[in-house]
C-alpha cells in the first residue's frame, strides 16, 4: 500500500499548544516537510524565539536552542559560522523580530549571515496578550492602542521584508501568507527556496509569513483569514522581493 500522507519526521508527536485557528501549526508543518524533503533533518538546528512559539522545541524533531528575546539571528549566525555544514534557521514573531530584535535582524542581514529566518507576522504581540507591535496596521485595535493605531502617535507599520531586501547581504527575501491552500503551497516553496539559498551559501534569507491571531484579534478563525486578506495583504504585498541566483 502506498502512503499518501503522513506526519513529517521533523515533527515530534507532541500536540501543538497554539490557539484554535492560529497558523503556527501550518507553518511548523511546512518547515518540517521541507527539512524532510531536503533530507537535512540530522543537520538542522533551529532557534526558538520568545513569543507564542517559545515552545517550538517541543514540536520540531531536531536540536533547538532558546534565544533571549529578539536575539535569535545572532545565535543562529554564531552556530552557522562554527558549524557551516549545518542548516540554521530562526523562527520569530513580529514582537521578537521587528520590535526588540530589530537590531539583530538588520545586522544579520547586513553581514549576509548564511541563515534562514522564518518570520511570522500577525501584527500583534501574541503571547503577552495582544499589544501593539511595530507591524500593527493603522487603525488596528490592540490592548495598547484601544482606539486603533494612529500614525501621529505610533507611526507606521514596519515592512520588514522591504527593509531587509535593500541589504546587499540579503540573498532571498520573500513575503507569503497562509490564508488559503495556494498561498500555503507558495509559502512551502519559499521556505524551501530559503533553505536552498543557505545550502548554496548565497547569504541571508528571510520568508515573512502573514499569519493570524484569532484570540487577540477577537475574530473567529475564518474571519481572521478574511481580515488578513482584506487588511494585511494590501499593506504587506506578497511575492519575492530579492532573489540572488549566484555568489
Amino acid at each position, binding site marked *: 500500500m502506498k502512503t499518501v500522507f503522513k506526519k513529517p519526521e521533523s515533527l515530534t508527536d507532541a500536540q501543538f499548544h497554539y490557539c484554535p485557528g492560529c497558523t503556527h501549526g501550518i507553518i511548523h508543518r511546512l518547515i518540517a516537510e521541507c527539512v524532510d524533503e531536503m533530507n537535512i533533518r540530522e543537520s538542522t538546528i533551529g532557534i526558538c524565539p*520568545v513569543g507564542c512559539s*517559545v515552545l517550538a522545541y517541543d514540536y520540531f524533531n531536531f536540536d533547538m536552542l*532558546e534565544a*533571549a*528575546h*529578539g536575539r535569535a539571528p545572532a545565535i543562529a549566525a554564531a552556530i552557522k559560522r562554527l558549524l557551516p555544514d549545518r542548516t540554521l534557521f530562526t523562527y520569530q514573531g513580529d514582537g521578537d523580530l521587528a*520590535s*526588540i530584535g*530589530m537590531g539583530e535582524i538588520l545586522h544579520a542581514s547586513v553581514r549576509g549571515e548564511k541563515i534562514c529566518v522564518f518570520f511570522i507576522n500577525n501584527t500583534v*504581540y501574541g*503571547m*503577552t*496578550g495582544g*499589544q*501593539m507591535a*511595530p507591524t500593527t496596521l493603522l487603525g488596528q485595535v490592540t*490592548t*495598547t*492602542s*484601544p*482606539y486603533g493605531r494612529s500614525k501621529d502617535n*505610533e507611526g507606521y507599520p514596519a515592512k520588514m521584508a522591504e527593509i531587509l531586501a535593500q541589504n546587499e547581504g540579503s540573498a532571498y527575501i520573500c513575503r507569503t501568507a497562509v490564508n488559503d491552500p495556494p498561498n500555503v503551497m507558495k509559502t512551502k516553496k519559499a521556505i524551501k527556496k530559503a533553505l536552498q539559498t543557505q545550502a548554496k551559501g548565497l547569504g541571508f534569507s528571510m520568508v515573512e509569513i502573514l499569519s493570524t491571531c484569532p484570540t487577540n484579534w477577537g475574530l473567529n478563525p475564518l474571519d481572521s483569514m478574511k481580515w488578513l486578506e482584506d487588511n494585511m495583504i494590501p499593506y504587506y504585498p506578497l511575492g519575492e522581493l530579492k532573489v540572488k541566483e549566484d555568489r
Partner: protein
Amino acid sequence: MSHRLSGNEAVAYAMKQINPDVMGAFPITPSTEIPEYFADYVANGEVNTEYVAVESEHSSMSVCIAAQAAGARSVCATSSCGLALMYELLYVAASCRLPITLACVNRALSGPININHDYSDSMGARDSGWIQIYAENNQEAYDNFLMAMPIGETPNVRLPVMACMDGFITSHAVENIELLETDAVRRFIGEYNPEHYLLKKENPLAVGPYDISPYYMEHKVLEAEAMKAAKARILEVAAAFEKISGRHYGLFEEYRMEDAELALVLMGSTAGTAKAAIDKLREDGVKAGLVKIRVFRPFPGEELARALAGTRAVAVMDKSEGFSANGGPLFAETCGALYGLKERPHLIDIVYGLGGRDVRVEDIEKVFGRLANIAATGETGPVYVHMGQRSREEIA
C-alpha cells in the same frame, strides 16, 4: 474606598491617580497588564500622560530617563528579563539622580526561561542605586507605589524607586483593597518641581556627561549619601501616609517579635504564609516571630540588628539564589547587619521558591523546627541550604 483588585490593577490605578507626565511602555509577563490598563486610561482621556509604546525595555527606561531629565514625572513597569535589559539604564537613572518610579513585578530571570516568581530580577539590580521597596500583598503594592514619588523626589534623596511585588502571586491574584480618593492622592504626591531640568533657560544643563576620574568618585559618594538619606525620608513619608490612610509602614514589619526566640527574615508574599505558621506555632508555645523586609535598598541594617538582638536562632529565607557560594543576597545583608551585635543569634540561610516553587505553611513550620533544634543544641548544622527540591533529602 473598598475594592477588589489584582496587584497589577492596583498599581495601574495608583498610576492613574498620580497622573504622571510620561510612561515608557513595553509588555512582559507578568507586568504586562499595568501598561495595558494604563493605555485605556490614556485613550479615554482619564490621564494626560504621554504614553510611549517602545520596542524594548532598554528603550522604555531610556524614555523615562529623558522625560525625567526634562523635568517630567515618568513611570514604567517591567519584570524579569525586561529589568535585565534595562540594566545599563538603571545605573544611568540613579547616577543622574532622576527619581523615576518603576513597578517591578518580580519574576525569575532566564535561563532556563521561566515566568513565575522569585527575586532574581530585582536582586540582580540591588546595587544599581535604586531604592527598592517590596510588597507582601496588593494593598502594599498600591501603597508603596503611592509613597515612591514623595520618597524619590525629595531633594536630598533624588533617586529612582523600584516598587516591587511578587509576580502572579500578588500581580494576578484579586484581593480586597482600600483605595484612597484621587484628590487625597494628588495632595499627598504634590507637584513635581525639580530644581534642575533640561532647557531651563536660567540654568543650562548637561545630563549624564562624561565624568573623569577627578570627579567620578565624588558623584558616587553623593549617590551613596543620598541612599543613606533615603532611610529617614522613607519613614517620614510612611508617617505622612499613615495620616491619610490609617496604614502603618516601617522599613520592615515585625510580626510577633516582642519576645521571639526563633525568627525568620524574608520578603514579599511568603510573609503571609509565615504569619499563618507563626500563629500556629505560638498556640503550641513556640516563641516564633518574623521580620518582613519591606525596604531592601537602603538596607535597614542597624534597625534589623536591633530587631533580632534578642533572638536565639534566625533563618533568612532567600527567594533568589545569587550564586555567591556563600548564601543568598538577603542572607549576606542580614549577616552583615548582625556582625556588630555582641551576642549574635545562630544564623542560617534557606534558599526557597526559585522559579515559583510553592512554599506552604508546613514548610515554614519545618524551618522553625530546625531553628528550635539549633537553639536547643547550639549546633547550627549546614548554614546554606535549598528547601523544596524534589530530588534531594530535606535538610531544611
